[in-house]
């Protein structure tokens, strides 16, 4: 199979990149392992406010629908329930639907594989009932399943605040949010206030000592600053932050750098969201973990850059659009997450100085 633009990942960044390219007449193929378009937005029921100026504030799943719908009129081929597994010698990528493996030749590749949640280990964290915070949200908002009756959340990011409220809304008792740091990590103070008001306790400077249970978790010991307590729970949601998913970049031989604020190791890329393999672009959380609005803008920048590299738009036009998109990115990102924005700038400056390269050369 051949395509002009191959996008890996049908989340907000991939869809945005697809729109920029397909709407300018390019033939686009989108690959996603899931059965639906929209990626992690599909189960976001909270209202997302920090969005590119063309969008009104809306709920995550509505945004997913909008990003999908705007592609309807263009030449976009979806390969859902497909995933990338590797590379052929001639440079085409290997895609599978779990029945066959087939090559796709592309002119430009946009990798938008998103981020994955990190775990927080403690004794017996492998027990059933101990799941990631994202898994909990998926269960309630996508699968319409109550994951447990009595829960705690370990970790206190903005995302944890959203999910805490959503768990309460479907009738799960959230006993506490446990945070090892001395402060709540969430930046959206309004939201934190709402969580506090809802009656959920915040245990700061605290951590889980041990989970117990026979076939599944039934209680946990929590070390508070001054004492140790035991809580009866059947659900523990772990919020260990997120990190970019790098497998595809690694296979393609892209170089990497390290930016803790962007989630750790990330591919090297320049202001075009182009990696050091000139035919490989990237977008979204894979380029550094950020907010949904920022993720969409990065997809737009990558898409515009792809069009430019395929001479669909000229350099001046592309540069003009890119400058305004970068301004949008700065607005969205630096308002709530100035450190993320700063890390992104630093990362782009370090484009020519990767920390990890030639990963397959012995």
């Amino acid at each position, binding site marked *: 199979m051949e395509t002009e633009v191959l996008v890996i990942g049908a989340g907000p960044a991939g869809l945005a990149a697809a729109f920029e390219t397909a709407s300018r007449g390019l033939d686009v193929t989108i690959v996603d392992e899931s059965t639906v378009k929209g990626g992690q937005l599909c189960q976001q029921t909270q209202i997302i406010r920090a969005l590119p100026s063309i969008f009104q504030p809306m709920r995550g799943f509505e945004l997913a629908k909008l990003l999908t719908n705007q592609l309807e009129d263009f030449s976009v081929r979806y390969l859902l329930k497909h995933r990338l597994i590797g*590379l052929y010698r001639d440079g085409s990528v290997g895609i599978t639907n779990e029945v066959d493996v087939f090559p796709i030749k592309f002119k430009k590749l946009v990798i938008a594989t998103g981020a994955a949640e990190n775990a927080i280990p403690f004794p017996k964290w492998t027990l059933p009932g101990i799941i990631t915070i994202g898994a909990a949200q998926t269960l309630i908002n996508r699968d319409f399943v109550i994951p447990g009756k009595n829960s705690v959340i370990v970790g206190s990011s903005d995302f944890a605040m959203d999910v805490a409220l959503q768990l309460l809304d479907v009738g799960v008792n959230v006993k506490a949010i446990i945070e090892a740091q001395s402060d709540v990590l969430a930046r959206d103070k309004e939201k934190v206030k709402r969580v506090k008001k809802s009656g959920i306790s915040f245990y700061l400077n605290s951590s889980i000592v041990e989970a117990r249970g026979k076939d599944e978790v039934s209680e946990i010991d929590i070390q508070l600053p001054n004492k140790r307590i035991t809580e009866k729970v059947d659900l523990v949601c772990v919020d260990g932050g997120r990190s970019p998913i790098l497998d595809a970049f690694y296979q393609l031989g892209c170089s990497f750098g390290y930016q803790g604020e962007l989630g750790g190791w990330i591919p090297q890329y320049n202001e075009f969201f182009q990696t050091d393999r000139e035919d490989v672009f990237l977008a979204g959380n894979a380029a550094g973990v950020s907010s949904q609005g920022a993720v969409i803008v990065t997809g737009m920048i990558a898409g515009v850059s792809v069009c430019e590299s395929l001479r669909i738009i000229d350099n001046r036009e592309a540069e003009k659009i890119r400058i305004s998109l970068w301004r949008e990115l700065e607005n969205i990102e630096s308002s709530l997450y100035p450190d993320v924005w700063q890390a992104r700038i630093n990362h782009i400056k370090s484009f020519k100085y990767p920390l990890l390269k030639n990963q397959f050369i012995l």
Partner: protein
Amino acid sequence: METNYETIIIGGGVIGNSIAYHLSERYKGGILVIDKKFPMSGTSGATQAWVWVHNKTPAWYAEFSMYSAELYSYLSKKIGDVEYRRTGGLSPFFTVRDLEKAKRLADSYEKIGIKIKVLSREEVLEKEPFINPKVVGATFSRIDGNVNPFRLIDMYMRAAKKNGVHYSTYNRVIDIQKQNGQFVVISEKTTYVTKNLILAGGPWSRELGRMVGVDIPVNQVRGQILVSEPLKPFLNYTISGLRQTNNGEVLIGYSMEQAGFDRSTTLDVIQETANMAVHYVPSLRKAKIVRTFSGIRAMPKDGLPIIGRVPDVENLYVAATHSGITLSPLIGTIMTELIVDGETSIPIDRYSITRFS
């Protein structure tokens, strides 16, 4: 930090570690192993780790391999469990033409006293019921087996360390000079001085040789391997092309490519290897592959080991070979004899580097 040594071994792969360990049995102290990364990060950690005699030619090389295989059971007793299993080796074939070749192989081995049996289709299927029933026959050798390469090297290292061997890892050797009858080894971290120097650089042997002005004609060959999820034990033998580990995974692969030091995997070869697997063992079809990897093998120009003294450079030794896992116990033993006693219990003239000049 100590910088003066009696013997320095460059290369912490299976050969370097075996030499270090065997040497440390004879004299304590004064031995250093230097590795540019960490043992197992190169060739020795990317292998199916067969202990394999079966199709080694010429016959005298097969004999040499056999001696090494024989040392394995004894080695496990000394350094600990390395998961060595003498399963027997089985090489299935699927054409009548190969049957003739198999018979010739068996004949030539008989002369040196290695027994290779040519099995009929029925005998193959009795020994290994999951082999493709379309099999025509197989060659079979009782002495073949496999080992866990990670355990092997870990155990060599631990035993060597216990005997006082020093290790310097993540320390690339930059240059080697000969001064006042001693070797000066300049590495990233520091400069060492040693009386004896052993080059055990595997695929990097050429590069190391250059530092002492010696041409060590070793090339690189890439092999790609598939790893399945652990399955209940179902394979009884080490089959040329695939084997089941103690832990249950099936390692699959028998590919050879010229790719220099590029250890990437390619779907072309991975899929070809998958084809081989389902051709050999059709009921593996549903098993899941969790990983692939690629190993860069050291391949001396003529395929045979390069072992022994380097003429004209006093106290310089080289040990570079393909099939390092199979040969490590023997090469460690022989090199120790050569360094400590000045002679070896079995002749190694044929493996001398002088054959290339």
